[in-house]
């Protein structure tokens, strides 16, 4: 009798621990939506303060994402397909911002691009002062978010069967055409996954931004910096901005899941993107 009860307790323990873990993750999200009357949220968000922060976030992240994908994709391709001395070191360097505390990233950016920093002199001569400017935010976001994209992109390109690119070359496609018609479509799934992570990290960036770019409304005050400022002044508005960011991130994640599901389900029909597993057939 007692053994079966203990047995049931033994089976219940993992379930209990899982429940606690899930609750821990879910409760802050739920609290966000319950602590402020949801009906007030639209008017709270219409406040010019929020609009300015949203505009800054949108502009800086758009530019940053273009830079990340524009520079990151060819860089990842080179790193994935070429072997050269010191390659392991370069890949580690590229992943470094991932493990760097955001504030440290901010200090590093200051030390490099700030007025008294490494490149401060040349920048000043060119008439460029980065702190307090939108470009500082773009730099901060790009710095902290690009490793998320690069890591996935490198893995995606590495996962492509080299005989496929070799086949393309023997069929008359130069390196550019091979990249465009074979490598990119096959890597697309991984690239998209990487971008989703980079995007989420970007719009959530705070530490590096506040240290490097400052908190200038309409210029460098992103949504996250706005939350920080409103924490003491208007907690309800801070909550509203938080809800906005959760909805935004959730929408991006959901879209990504939907796209992935659609692509993996269309196995025999043609589709724009290729499967992420690129085993040759």
């Amino acid at each position, binding site marked *: 009798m007692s053994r079966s009860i203990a047995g049931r307790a033994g089976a219940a323990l993992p379930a209990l621990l899982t429940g606690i873990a899930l609750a821990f993750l879910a409760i802050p999200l739920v609290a966000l939506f319950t602590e402020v009357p949801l009906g007030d949220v639209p008017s709270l968000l219409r406040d010019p303060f929020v609009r300015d922060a949203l505009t800054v976030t949108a502009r800086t992240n758009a530019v940053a994402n273009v830079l990340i994908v524009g520079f990151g994709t060819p860089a990842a391709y080179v790193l994935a397909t070429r072997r050269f001395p010191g390659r392991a070191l370069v890949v580690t360097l590229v992943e470094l911002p991932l493990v760097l505390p955001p504030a440290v990233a901010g200090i590093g950016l200051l030390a490099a691009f700030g007025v008294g920093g490494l490149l401060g002199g040349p920048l000043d001569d060119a008439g460029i002062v980065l702190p307090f400017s939108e470009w500082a935010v773009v730099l901060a976001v790009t710095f902290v978010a690009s490793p998320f994209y690069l890591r996935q992109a490198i893995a995606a390109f590495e996962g492509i069967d080299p005989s496929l690119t*070799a086949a393309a*070359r023997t*069929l008359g496609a*130069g390196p550019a055409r091979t990249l465009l*018609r074979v490598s990119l479509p096959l890597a697309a799934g991984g690239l998209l996954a990487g971008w989703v992570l980079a995007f989420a990290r970007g719009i959530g960036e705070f530490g590096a931004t506040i240290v490097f770019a400052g908190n200038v409304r309409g210029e460098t005050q992103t949504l996250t910096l706005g939350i920080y400022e409103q924490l003491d002044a208007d907690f309800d508005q801070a909550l509203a901005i938080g809800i906005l960011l959760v909805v935004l991130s959730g929408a991006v994640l959901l879209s990504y899941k939907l796209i992935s599901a659609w692509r993996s389900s269309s196995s025999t029909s043609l589709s724009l993107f*290729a499967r992420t597993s690129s085993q*040759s057939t």
Partner: protein
Amino acid sequence: MGPSGAGKSTVLQAIAGLRRPDRGRIAVDERAWFDAAGGIDLAPESRSVGLVFQEYALFPHMSVRANVAFGGPQRADELLERFGIAHLADVRPSAISGGERQRVALARALARGPEVLLLDEPLSALDAHTRGVVRGELEDLLAELEQPALLVTHDMRDATALADRIGVIADGRLRQVGTLPELLDRPADAFVARLTGANVIPAGAVVGGPSGDGQVAVVAHPWELTLATAQPACAAVPGVVHGIVPDGDRARVRVGDVVVQAQAEEVERLGLERGASAWAVLAPGPPRLVAN
């Protein structure tokens, strides 16, 4: 032709421009694609090859038709028809069988109108039954092909069925190039002989010969030997019967280390079975010798 790891695929890759040799020259007619001494090294896309990979390397994200058209859009439909895969045009490679994929790979390689066709172990990815069928199809294709084709395989049967001339490669070295009769009748060394399925029977030493001293062996194909139960008058090798494998109206009998191909009724008449003593008898006439 040669065993795995001999360097056969490397040769094809070098011709295609995917691997760079240290020395040497690769040319079609008089046009050099690679010349170490002259500093010529054309990129793969500038050479005119059609390479059929061992695992076919079909683009998984494109339809069959798109795959074939990748090398040459104008000839795609014609090739699909010729290889009998036009009905699969809109299907993805993952949804078709191994034999069909092989045909797609062939069609794709030919779509570009290459000067040279390169086939890397074209039949090894297929199951036994399909292999026989496809071998026949390949035979027909290669017969009507105008371009030279280079085929790489570890299977003697592929080489004998499909090739005009066979080059034997082992350990990265070319041992012998010749027609099949040449390889069978005048193998360059014991390795080539064994590869063609011949028996290599150690025969003793040569002292003071034109090429110096050394061990020699006699090369005898299974069908050139006969069986006897008592020591015959001519040259023969004694041994214990290890196995008898029937093969239609013939049988392959292992006597010691020697394989004899005899008529099945001959084996019956002699009453041979496993464990019995027997003699493998060489044909009369001068023996074939190789260094051993």
